[in-house]
C-alpha cells in the first residue's frame, strides 16, 4: 500500500469518530491544551497500529480505549498534578469559554458562577471519580460503555458514580450552589 493510500485508509477509519473522541479527550484531560495533546497522541498511536485498526469491527470504542490508556499512562508518569488541577480554571480553554451568551446578562452571570463552582467541585474529585461522572452524566455514556472503556468492573464503575455524585452534592450544598 502506498503512503497516500495508507493515509487515506487511516482517515476513513478515524475521522467519523473525531467529535466523540475530542469530547472524550476533553472530559479526561480537563483542559483544552491537554485534550488536544491527548487527541493528537491518539492519532499518532492509531496510525502506528493501522494494520490492526483495519481489522476491527468497531473502531470507535477501540480508539476510545486506546485514548483512555494513553491518558492513564500519562497520569502515572506524573502522579502529582495538583497544580494543574487547581490552575486549570484559569488556563485558556476552560469550560467557561464555551458558554454561549444570551440576551439576559443576569442569567449569564448566574450560570457562569454555577459552572465556576461546578468546575471547582469537579476538581476536588479524584480523577477516577471525575471521569466516571462526566462520562455518564455529561456525555451520556452507559455504565457498560464506561466499563469497557476503562477496563473497570461494572460494580466499581457504579460505586464511583455514586460516590462522585455524593461528593459533588456535599461540596455544592456547602458552597450554596444547591440549597
Amino acid at each position, binding site marked *: 500500500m502506498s503512503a497516500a493510500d495508507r493515509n487515506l485508509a487511516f482517515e476513513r477509519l478515524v475521522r467519523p469518530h473525531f467529535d466523540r473522541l475530542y469530547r472524550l479527550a476533553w472530559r479526561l484531560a480537563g483542559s483544552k491544551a491537554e485534550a488536544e495533546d491527548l487527541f493528537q497522541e491518539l492519532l499518532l498511536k492509531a496510525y502506528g497500529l493501522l494494520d490492526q485498526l483495519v481489522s476491527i469491527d468497531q473502531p470507535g470504542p477501540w480508539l476510545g480505549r486506546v485514548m483512555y490508556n494513553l491518558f492513564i499512562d500519562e497520569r502515572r508518569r506524573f502522579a502529582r498534578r495538583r497544580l494543574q488541577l487547581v490552575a486549570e480554571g484559569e488556563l485558556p480553554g476552560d469550560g467557561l469559554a464555551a458558554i454561549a451568551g444570551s440576551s439576559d446578562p443576569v442569567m449569564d452571570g448566574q450560570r457562569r458562577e454555577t459552572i465556576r463552582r461546578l468546575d471547582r467541585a469537579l476538581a476536588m474529585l479524584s480523577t477516577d471519580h471525575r471521569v466516571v461522572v*462526566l462520562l455518564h452524566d*455529561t456525555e451520556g455514556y*452507559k455504565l457498560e460503555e464506561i466499563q469497557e472503556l476503562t477496563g473497570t468492573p461494572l460494580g466499581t464503575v457504579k460505586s464511583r458514580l455514586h460516590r462522585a455524585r455524593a461528593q459533588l452534592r456535599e461540596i455544592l450544598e456547602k458552597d450554596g450552589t444547591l440549597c
Partner: protein
Amino acid sequence: MHDDNHNTAHGDQDDARIQALLKDYPMPQAAAGFYDQALARATVKGARRERNRWLLSGFGGAIAAGLALWLLSSTLLHTPGMQSAGDTVSASIPGITMTLEEPRTVNLVFASATALDAVTLTVTLPAGVELAGFPGQSEVSWETSLTAGRNLLPLRLVALTPVGGELLARLEHENRDRLFRLRLNIS
C-alpha cells in the same frame, strides 16, 4: 440516553439535581481546522515514527519537553527555603525550539519539598509569543497550591514572530519567590 437504574430511592432526588447541572456542563468545540491539522501531523509524524521507531516513545513531544524541564528545574525549588528571584538565576537556561505559528505545549514541572498554599504563579512571555487563548497578554498570574513533590503546569504556547526570547515563571509564597527561566527559540 441513560438506561441505568441503579440509584437508591433515597438519593434519586439529589442525584437528579446533580445530573441536571452536569448535563449542561459546557465544553469548547475543537478549533476550526484542528482535526485536519491533527490528522496531517499524525500521518506525517506517524510515517516518520514508523521509520524511526527507536527514537520515539512516551507521550509525545510535549511531555518530552516537560521531562527535560523537570530534570533541569526539579532541583531548583526546594521550599520552604526559597530564595529571592534575583539570587537564583541559573547561568545555564534550559531552552526549547518552537515552530513559528505552530502551537506547542510546554509542561513546566515544579518540585517542592513541602505542600504550600496561596502560592502566586506568574508567567511572563517574551514579545511575539502568546499563551493560546490569551491573545495579546504577555503576563498571566494566578494563585494556586503546590503539593509536596512534582507539580505539573502545561502551557500551550504559540510563536507569532520569529524572535523568541525568555519565558519567566515566578513562584511567590510569603514574601519569598523563585524564578524559572526557559529560553524559547523559534524556527
